[in-house]
Structure formats: structure tokens, C-alpha cells
């Protein structure tokens, strides 16, 4: 059993844990950031001798791996949260409301891994595979817009403070959340509503269609707790909800709830730390 693992940032170490659970050796394919899906998928299909191909379920993994799977005529298993046996996995469906256990009948396993469901394993001593020459006439990068926020990455932060539409403006969102995040060395997240309203950049969205996170502490402020948002954060170890509406669904998943006005409670919380 030999597994190829696609590297993609900090999620790689988490996906490695899952890859090792398949048994056997793991080789890591380093992927430079400017390589698009078409040449990368083609290159992977030229590599022989792999029984499984694994990638973290990052935007790169989700983009490339199904292309590889189709080229190899394999049905991919997306977003696994548990390795039951080398060909059997648990994965969430219906925005996390049903957990399926599926067994592959294909000759190879091609899987993406939900990073937050597996602890990291150090990459030391793992064999690296170099990406061969690859060019594609099908696509090219025009531009990249990476708003670099201060503080830790959302996907790997121990603490996340996340804001919703209740902030009412981008200014208030930043004015109240940034000092709190700085004090806690936390990453900032946002609900879909806050992103749609323009309070936060799209890459801060936590939820089923944004980032799936599981920090030690998740503080949801002014977030009502739509099912799509809960799907992205309900595996967090400790959840705090601060919301003015005691009926908000966010309180159903919160370990500690604080009912009240975020505009007074947040500065108070920042000052208390």
C-alpha cells in the first residue's frame, strides 16, 4: 500500500494523519501555488504505483482531486472525517446532518480529508515527490487577490472569533472584532450573511460552503446560527455565543451563551482579557 498525498499548506499535516491510517507508505507531492488543476491532475495520473491518492479538502484539493479521479475512472470520496478501514470512510452529507459510512469498490481510493477532523502529524521523514514539468493550454492565471489578514490562519487557529450580520457595518465589524482577536491571538471568521453584506472578505466565511473549522474555542458574535454556518463550526471544542436574541439557533450548539447587545458586551470582553 502506497499513498500519494497532495500538499496544501497547514492542512497537509492533518491530511497526513488520515493518509497514514490507510496503512503503508505515504509520499508527499509538493504543489507550487501557481499550478492550475488541468496540468496538475494530468501529472498525477502519470505517477504509477499509488493505491490511494489523498488531498486535504482545501480549495486546491477540492479543485484538483475530482479531475484526477475522473481521469483514473475512480469515484472520489470527499471530505472524510474518519478512516474506518483502508477502503471504508465516514463522511458528512446534508450539511453535516447525516454521517455516511461508505466503502469504495474501485481499485484505488481517491479521497479528500476534512483537516479539522484529524490531528496533525509532523511531515518529517516523509518522502517528497517533485512536480514534473507541466504546462496547460486550457487555462492560465490572470491575477491573485490574497487579502492578508494579521494573526493566525482560520484553518489552524486555536481560537476563532467570528462575526455576523448584527455588526451592521464593516467598520463596526473591524472596530470590535480586531482588538478581541488580537488579545486572544485568534483568527477572525464571519458568517455568510456578514460576507454577503461586505463586512468581511470571502475567505473568512465559516460554514458548509466556506471554511470548516474546529478550534479549541469558537466565539460566535451576532451570528444567528443558520444550519450552513453550524455545519462549519459545530465540531469546535468549546463554543461561545453572544447574541441579543435568546431564541437564536446558535445557542443550541453553544457551551456558553451570553444574551445581550454585542456593542456593549464585546468591548467589555476585550477589556476583561
Amino acid at each position, binding site marked *: 500500500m502506497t499513498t500519494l498525498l497532495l500538499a496544501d499548506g497547514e492542512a497537509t499535516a492533518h491530511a497526513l494523519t488520515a493518509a497514514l491510517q490507510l496503512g503503508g507508505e505515504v509520499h508527499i507531492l509538493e504543489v507550487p501555488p501557481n499550478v492550475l488543476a488541468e496540468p496538475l491532475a494530468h501529472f498525477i495520473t502519470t505517477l504509477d504505483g499509488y493505491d490511494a491518492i489523498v488531498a486535504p479538502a482545501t480549495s486546491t484539493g*477540492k479543485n484538483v482531486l*475530482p479531475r484526477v*479521479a*475522473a481521469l483514473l475512472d475512480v469515484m472520489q470520496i470527499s471530505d472524510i472525517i474518519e478512516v474506518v478501514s483502508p477502503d*471504508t470512510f465516514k463522511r*458528512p452529507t446534508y*450539511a453535516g446532518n447525516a454521517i455516511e459510512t461508505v466503502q469504495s469498490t474501485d481499485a484505488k481510493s481517491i479521497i479528500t480529508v476534512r483537516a479539522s477532523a484529524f490531528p496533525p502529524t509532523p511531515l518529517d521523514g516523509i518522502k517528497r515527490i517533485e512536480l514534473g514539468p507541466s504546462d496547460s493550454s486550457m487555462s492560465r492565471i490572470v491575477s491573485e487577490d490574497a487579502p492578508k489578514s494579521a494573526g493566525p490562519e482560520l484553518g489552524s487557529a486555536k481560537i476563532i472569533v467570528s462575526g455576523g450580520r448584527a455588526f451592521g457595518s464593516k467598520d463596526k465589524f473591524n472596530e470590535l472584532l480586531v482588538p478581541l482577536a488580537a488579545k486572544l491571538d485568534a483568527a477572525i471568521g464571519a458568517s455568510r450573511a456578514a460576507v454577503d453584506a461586505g463586512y468581511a472578505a470571502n475567505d473568512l466565511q465559516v460554514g458548509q460552503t466556506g471554511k470548516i473549522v474546529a478550534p479549541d474555542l469558537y466565539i460566535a458574535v451576532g451570528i444567528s446560527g443558520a444550519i450552513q454556518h453550524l455545519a462549519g463550526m459545530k465540531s469546535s471544542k468549546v463554543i461561545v455565543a453572544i447574541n441579543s436574541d435568546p431564541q437564536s439557533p446558535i445557542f443550541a450548539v453553544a457551551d*456558553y451563551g451570553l444574551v445581550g447587545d454585542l456593542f456593549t458586551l464585546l468591548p467589555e470582553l476585550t477589556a476583561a482579557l
Partner: protein
Amino acid sequence: MKILVAVKRVVDANFRVRVKGDGTGVELDNVKMSMNPFDEIAVEEAVRLKEAGTATEIVVVSIGPAKAEDTLRQALAMGVDRAILVVHDGKTESLGVAKTLAAIAKSETPDLIILGKQAIDDDANQTGQMLAALLGCGQGTFASKLVIGDGKAIVTREVDGGLQTIELVLPAVVTADLRLNTPRFTALPNIIKARAKPLTRTSAAELGVDLGLRLKTLKVEEPPVRAAGIIVGSVAELVQKLRAAEVLP
């Protein structure tokens, strides 16, 4: 320019699904079904391209039970020209669906194919990428902006690090993310007109595609339930509890 759009009939996004007691799946009887929300965005984008004069014809495809005609009629009401229903009862997987769409794309020869980035039932996020692979064309996944010009598609993609803009040579496959557009409300006159628009039926067998499942579903279960939390009375109490739980320094 001709556009092909693919849509899936799924459990409505606002309906909370329940896992069946015997662990074989989720309860699908007497459940409200709708067009997959991401596919609705795909349809809207195609219709806008036609309204802008960029596209001349839009064809919509669905693979599903006879009832999936409702989903196709909704797409027709939004402004799609004609529909193809690949009648199939029972579960489908992305790979089989991608092969079916590839077979249709080979006969329809669209310049652009737009799909939702994922279906909200199986949450696989695979079909568009697989279709692009099978057709040997470029893919612009998780699109939040699409511009067509000069035989190319400029796609702005929502990626983990922010936004990435790529250029694809047409024909190409684009998958729609949430912020690509806001789908229109379909007015009653258009719903009535859609009944008269052409809809053809075919099957995977007629297309020469095997929709047999590659994955065996061994069990479906409810996610673990979180223990009930408590409401604290003040910021001071919250901080004290979080320190006691050792998640705050």
C-alpha cells in the same frame, strides 16, 4: 454561443433532513424537493449571458426521477430554452453523472457548461471537475464572477487565500459559487410559458453510460449531539468559565 447547464433535484435547503431509524439513509418521503441552490445560480448566470446577447441558446440537463421534470421546468421558467431529462431512479454518484453529462455535451457541443459547485445532498463537490476532465477541457470552479469574450472565459474563483482570476479557453466548465449572482424570482406567466418549452427524455442506457454505483453505503447515522450548554449572566462569568475550561489563558 451555446450554454449547457446541469441541475439536480435535491431536498430543499430549508428542510432539516432526518436519518432513517434503520440507518440506511435519510427520510425522503413527504419531503420538499427543490433545485439545488448552486445549480439555480448556474441557471441564472446562463440566462444573464443570454440576456446580455453573449449566449444564443441555453440547454438544461438533469439526471433523476420523472419528478425532476419540475426542476427542469423551473429552469425553463427562468429563461432556459430547452431541457433534457435523463430519467434515472435511485441514487447517483458524481462520476456517473459526469459521464452522462459528457455524453450529452458531445452531442450538444456547447461552448460553455455551467454547474453548481456542489449539490447540498451528497456535498461531494466533484461533478464539474470530473466533467471537465472527461471532456479534456479547462475548469473554473467556485466562480464568483464570470466574463466571456473572444473565445475565452475569465473566471474569478473563491479560494482559501482570497480570490483567484483565471482565463479558460472555451469550451470550458464553470462551477458556480454562492456570490456569482442572486437567482431571479420566476413570475407566474413565465412558469406557464415554461410548460410549452421543449423537454426531451432519454436514459443513461440510450447514452451508453453506466450509472452503476462505485461506493457501497454501509451505514447512515445522525451526527454526534453536543451536550446542552449554559447561559451565563455576565462577561465576567463567561471569562471565569472559559478560564476554568482552560481554553483561555
